[in-house]
């Protein structure tokens, strides 16, 4: 007879740095579990059987969540062993747990489906995943496992080129390397990581963790060529002559801007520009670092996704007062709950139902205020389940000497200029069920095909594409040998 577990409704909290202290720097906000706390939280998991576990179904890469959590409890007397066994299970499905444990919207995925969550707080799966990754990294356990993996990475089965070193590309690369392919990633920026490098601030994903994940790929034999823009430095056509297949993971790298009067005023940034200057180029350490950022005393961030939260919290850390203005209501904000909570704790103000209609400039050509129209929600809902909104004809003007626009992204158009590469009206690449584009041998995934989604969905695509690429190359070989 199965042992009936006692259900503990409340989550074991993870230590966080106090808001007043953390807004002064860019160091990580959440400190993560200790082993003891992790075991306590792990014990709350009801261990749903693999076939039924809703958390696994809710995870885009189907990590065996009860499996890895059970190891923490099972080997509670031997932390190293507990983590080694847990990491082995996670790595079967996801080689970047230190990243996903930090940036996944768990409340919409694994934790959103958790049975414990129906009666209390869902098991903190994200923090447990992060704990396993962090502990393994710090205690040499990852190193042991990498040595085992390395031997499988022969690079003999074929050559694959990957465009873009973001979550989709990195995952696809890792999977293909493990299968025995020689992989080369082409990255436009001087640093790999894509959105993980330029978009997500240090206080959410420290760069040393990203660097570590990238070093892992190097160990698996993956080569990363930075400073290469595919479509300019080298074309897809040229890559196909040298490689057996190509994977495009170029993301949604182009910011949407508001086409309203005043958009060209000074100190109006796209979130991408703002975050790239601050995160990737370390403008917060200007003039020690050479990239500047110009920011005033009052910042308005337009939008309510994770990018908006990242931009708002970065602006706070640069010493500005920050207000997030969103055209819909609080319940429609798309950011992770944790990010919204952190932003509020740190002092970000929120204004809802405000649609920007004009940026007002001063005599120096810099923004000094934003004019908004007040919006009103309707009962009717749109395709995404959000309440539709209409203008009220009533206007408000808020002072701001800095504006950051975080209303979304669209795919980068350099790659879509490739002859023969079919796109949808919104600029995303057309792919079949195997993620193959209209050019045979060229696959794509992540935001390049989704428009805007999450890191984990991009990773899921990278993984799926790796399998499809493997099949494609095998079939091609068989045909050639027949």
């Amino acid at each position, binding site marked *: 007879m199965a042992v009936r577990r006692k259900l503990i409704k409340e989550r074991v909290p993870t230590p966080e740095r106090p808001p007043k202290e953390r807004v002064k720097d860019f160091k990580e906000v959440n400190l993560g579990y200790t082993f003891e706390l992790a075991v306590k939280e792990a014990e709350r998991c009801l261990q749903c059987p693999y076939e039924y576990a809703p958390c696994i179904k809710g995870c885009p890469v189907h990590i065996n969540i009860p499996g890895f959590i059970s190891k923490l409890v099972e080997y509670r007397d031997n932390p190293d062993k507990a983590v080694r066994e847990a990491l082995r299970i996670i790595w079967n499905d996801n080689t970047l747990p230190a990243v996903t444990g930090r940036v996944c919207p768990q409340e919409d995925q694994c934790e959103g489906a958790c049975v414990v969550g129906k009666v209390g707080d869902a098991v903190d799966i994200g923090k447990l995943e992060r704990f396993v990754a962090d502990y393994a990294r710090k205690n040499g356990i990852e190193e042991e496992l990498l040595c085992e993996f390395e031997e499988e990475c022969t690079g003999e089965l074929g050559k694959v080129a990957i465009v873009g070193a973001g979550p989709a590309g990195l995952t696809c690369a890792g999977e293909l390397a493990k299968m025995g392919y020689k992989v080369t990633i082409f990255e436009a920026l*001087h640093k790999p990581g894509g959105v993980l490098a330029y978009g997500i601030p240090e206080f959410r994903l420290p760069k040393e963790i990203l660097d570590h994940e990238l070093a892992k790929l190097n160990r698996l034999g993956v080569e990363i060529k930075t400073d290469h823009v595919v479509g300019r430095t080298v074309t897809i056509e040229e890559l196909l002559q040298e490689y057996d297949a190509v994977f495009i993971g170029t993301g949604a790298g182009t910011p949407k801007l508001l086409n309203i009067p005043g958009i060209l005023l000074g100190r109006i940034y*796209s979130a991408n*520009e703002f975050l790239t200057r601050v995160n990737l*180029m*370390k403008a917060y350490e200007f*003039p020690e670092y*050479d990239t500047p950022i110009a920011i005033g005393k009052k910042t308005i961030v337009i939008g309510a996704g994770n990018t908006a939260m990242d931009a708002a919290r970065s602006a706070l850390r640069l010493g500005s007062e920050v207000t997030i203005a969103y055209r819909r209501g609080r319940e429609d904000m798309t950011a992770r709950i944790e990010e919204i909570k952190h932003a509020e704790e740190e002092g970000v103000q929120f204004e809802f139902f405000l649609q920007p209609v004009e940026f007002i400039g001063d005599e120096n050509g810099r923004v000094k205020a934003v004019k908004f129209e007040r919006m009103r929600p309707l009962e009717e809902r749109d395709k995404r389940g959000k309440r539709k909104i209409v203008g009220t004809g009533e206007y408000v003007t808020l002072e701001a000497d800095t504006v950051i626009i975080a209303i979304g992204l669209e795919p980068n158009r350099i790659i879509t200029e490739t002859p023969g590469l079919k796109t949808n009206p919104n600029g995303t690449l057309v792919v079949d069920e195997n993620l193959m584009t209209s050019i045979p041998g060229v696959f794509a995934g992540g935001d390049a095909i989704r428009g805007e989604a999450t890191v984990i969905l991009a990773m899921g695509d990278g993984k799926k594409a790796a399998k499809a690429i493997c099949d494609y190359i095998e079939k091609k070989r068989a045909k050639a040998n027949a």
Partner: protein
Amino acid sequence: MGYRITAKENLSVIDFFMEVEAPHVAKAWKPGQFVVFILHEKGERVPMSVYKADKETGRVSMFIRKLGKTSLQLYYEFNVGDELWSFLGPLGKPIKVKYYGNVVFASDAVCGQAENYATLKAMKEAGNYTISIQSFENRANVYPEEFLAKPVADEYYLTTEDGSVGIKGHYLDVVKKLIEQDKVDIIFAGGKLGSLAKLAELTRPYGIPTITTVRQIMVDGTGMCGSCRILYDGEIKFACRDGPMFDAHKVDWDDVIRRDSRFAEQQALARERYLAKLREKGVI
């Protein structure tokens, strides 16, 4: 891995020449396209026009003004044999090289002077009659002969604003005369933004196609950040991805010029700090 500097030379009191080994860029570069480099780990991403790119040797060369912190540091601290941290390109769209008839290229500052040579060379190879105009402020700013666009031009004009060398005046004066002589089928130009705005107004009444470099502050250079956005024919375009060469008649020049000074305070601070350091060390 870095990118080795293979040549460095003074062009004038304010500009210098630098050649870098970057085969991946040299192989693909076409006139009109630019590069982005970073000096070192703490450096910024700097867009730069290209003078020549040699597919055989894999070397790319540029004209650079000793102006901001980065270019000053490059000039004072980086020598032949040293390496740049990052070198990306080619970026932007190449110019359309075809037969136009009489092709003029006019320039009055470092980035335009580099493009003057490259563009006209390609245009001459396409069978055009090429006219080059290069303007400098005075004798001390004029480049040595071997760096001028003279060899690729069928007709060549050098002007200085004070008349110390060549024709007294600016390229705008020469262009005016060429238009009167009905000698201009298309004009390309690069250099100072203010001059380009004036050029656009000069050629507009004649309907002469006028294609100019729209220099804007950039970060990534691939269309990812939107920093280099301009208003073009009423629409937002990105100079890095959609340009950098645009039909000058459709560009909102007031905005372009204003946006160019967005980081003036920060740039001045960085420059002053660096110059103070050089003075302290006795370099200058």
